[in-house]
């Protein structure tokens, strides 16, 4: 899809061969494409409008840098503005600077992931922040909701408030805070029943709970698949209970997640965490860069490699991405990748100009790629027969000696290469398990640096 967007923008700007500054008419046309891309990603319309107005003003008159096309230039401006609108590169952590017990209130629509996220947070606060945590379910609405939280608390090895039948949510909240004070808990996570923003009775109820417990954080838990309604929900909850942070769940799905932008724009509250699965470990800090890429749908290997430089042959990149996706990756491909890495290394400064690629350039730098090593490895592979490249398992001692001699290296060098290739294949298999989106999320940087993630 991003390829489509990128392609469209390239068309828009194709006639603008003279480079120079971005002209108003061309920018307008580009903004129409951006608008559609954002709407397809479920960014709410009023938010799209504001965003486009802002970006348009920014883009008009900008000088196009020689190394990139005007289309790429616009995408970069859009991407950067998106990162900005999502809260900028700074991560806003949970606020735990308050006297214990610190109440954290979880709110949101039915089925958005509040209870699961409460369990996840419990685990995280216990293990990472080393806090003594109490979970309390105020959900008297959904059948077995309190039991659900209790079971999650057991799994997370944190305490949960004993279930007392017949209490109102407000009574449970009071009992939770009293228990926490008496038994000296650091944090109390208050899970609430899902409620519709237009349900006055239930919105009043949660407002009363807030009054009673004075939460340090009120986290609005939102499904990443949410459509245009995100603005209504965000506005209503923010008005009634004052949202201090947003948690986006189901980011392990393939929704583009435009709701993140809508929520953030309406509440002004930072997106603090994202849910990446049903397991209790699957909670991470929010990364605006990744989500911006996702909203623009540029988070795929092909797109990234394409943009990384016109130096890298596009066909090769596509083939490679497909092979990775199919779990078929051999030494032949490894050799090609080595070539590409070498090329990209040489165009580092160019890469950093491109949208979403700032980090990639950084990673290339951090990876500290040793070019002589790359050349040596390329030489080793070129001394292999095609059959050997496809099936490295057949490389026994005698073949290794032949290859070492042929490439002017040692058998040790050959072994090292094979080991590295092995590691890389394992990593790719793991990424395949995450699916192509997982691969996309991890980005090419992970491939280059061999970093675990």
């Amino acid at each position, binding site marked *: 899809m991003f390829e489509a967007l990128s392609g469209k923008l390239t068309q828009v700007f194709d006639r603008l061969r003279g480079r120079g500054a971005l002209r108003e008419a061309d920018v307008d046309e580009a903004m129409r494409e951006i608008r559609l891309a954002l709407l397809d990603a479920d960014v709410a319309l009023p938010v799209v409008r504001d965003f486009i107005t802002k970006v348009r003003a920014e883009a008009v008159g900008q000088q196009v840098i020689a190394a990139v096309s005007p289309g790429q230039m616009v995408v970069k401006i859009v991407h950067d503005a998106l990162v900005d609108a999502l809260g900028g590169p700074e991560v806003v952590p949970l606020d735990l600077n308050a006297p214990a017990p610190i109440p954290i209130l979880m709110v949101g629509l039915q089925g958005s992931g509040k209870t699961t996220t409460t369990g996840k947070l419990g685990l995280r606060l216990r293990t990472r922040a080393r806090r003594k945590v109490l979970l309390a379910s105020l959900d008297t609405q959904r059948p077995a909701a309190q039991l659900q939280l209790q079971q999650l608390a057991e799994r997370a090895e944190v305490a949960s408030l004993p279930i007392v039948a017949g209490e109102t949510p407000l009574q449970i909240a009071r009992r939770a805070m009293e228990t926490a004070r008496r038994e000296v808990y650091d944090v109390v996570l208050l899970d609430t029943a899902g409620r519709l923003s237009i349900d006055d009775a239930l919105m009043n109820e949660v407002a009363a709970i807030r009054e009673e417990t004075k939460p340090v954080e009120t986290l609005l838990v939102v499904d990443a*698949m949410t459509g245009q309604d995100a603005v209504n929900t965000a506005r209503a909850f923010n008005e009634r209970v004052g949202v201090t942070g947003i948690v986006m769940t189901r980011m*392990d799905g393939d929704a583009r997640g435009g709701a993140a932008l809508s929520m953030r724009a309406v509440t002004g509250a930072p997106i603090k965490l994202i849910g990446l699965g049903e397991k209790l470990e699957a909670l991470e800090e929010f990364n605006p860069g990744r989500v911006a890429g996702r909203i623009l749908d540029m988070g795929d290997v092909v797109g990234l490699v394409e943009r990384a430089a016109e130096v890298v042959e596009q066909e090769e990149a596509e083939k490679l991405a497909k092979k990775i996706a199919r779990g078929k990756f051999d030494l032949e491909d490894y050799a090609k990748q080595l070539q590409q890495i070498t090329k990209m290394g040489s165009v580092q400064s160019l890469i950093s100009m491109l949208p979403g690629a700032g980090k990639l350039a950084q990673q290339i730098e951090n990876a500290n790629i040793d070019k002589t090593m790359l050349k040596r490895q390329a030489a080793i592979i070129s001394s292999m027969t095609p059959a050997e490249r496809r099936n490295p398992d057949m490389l026994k001692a005698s073949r290794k000696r032949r290859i070492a001699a042929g490439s002017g290296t040692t058998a040790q060098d050959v072994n090292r290469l094979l080991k590295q290739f092995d590691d890389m294949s394992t990593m790719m298999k793991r990424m395949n398990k995450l699916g192509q989106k997982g691969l996309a999320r991890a980005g090419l940087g992970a491939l280059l640096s061999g970093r675990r993630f």
Partner: protein
Amino acid sequence: MSGFLGRLRAGLARSTQKLTAGIGAALTRRKLDDAALAELEDALISADLGPAVAADVVANLRRTRFGRDVTEPEIRAALADIITPILAPVAKPLEPEPANRPHVVLMVGVNGTGKTTTIGKLAQLWRAEGKTVLMAAADTFRAAAVEQLQVWGQRTGCEVVAGAAGADPAGLAYAALERARNENADLLLIDTAGRLHNKTALMEELAKIVRVIRKLDPEAPHDIVLVLDATTGQNAIAQVEIFRAMVNVTGLIVTKLDGSARGGIVVALAKKFGLPVHAVGVGEQADDLRPFDPAAFAADLVDAPEHREA
């Protein structure tokens, strides 16, 4: 059924206020020109029809009424008239076939959409018709999912077949079908764990449930219902696409239409897939299930005045 429209409408009235204001402001005694059409298109986009379908609907309106002086109710009615025929062909209630006994319904969908609750609602509906209904707690994954369904069993007077936590859902579904046959139950409603469609292993697990059930009855499950949350945006298209490819979904139920979300994605889905929409969920209680009424749904999307009584 007296409570239903009132209740549904109370919710919808609130949720349509914004859209109403939008169309109202745009179109009271006004020429239907480019600007007006653009505003209408925006209103439809805000209802989650998606930019492409919204553009289609408005293009249709342009063909018939461009340049005319129109009033607000007129234009809403015209919009509803364009949308209703898109929805009409997919409105098909769930109808258990007595000859199938037990008629097997498998509920599938992404996490948290309302599968379990909808099973409770369907059970309520069919129990009221004097049918015997058995439920199978094949969500063996989520914490307290079994207990949740058991509460629905108690509420509706149905037996629930459950196994150990973490048990193989296909095995459980198989055992439940065996029991439903032995007991000569009219219906078997199988609850499954929510799963994201992009998780291949979980989708494969669902396909396995279907395969295993077919060993007992090659025709079962007779209905495979994908439950969609009305707040879902464009991702619903991917959901339908992949669930259908993996388990041959036979129809949809759209939940949470009592909220502020308008569920406009249903129009896009009807256009693209033509899958039956069996019912809509309008609340958390057992009797909060309604037939899918295309004219009423279309009218509510654009807040057209002549809201037909059921």
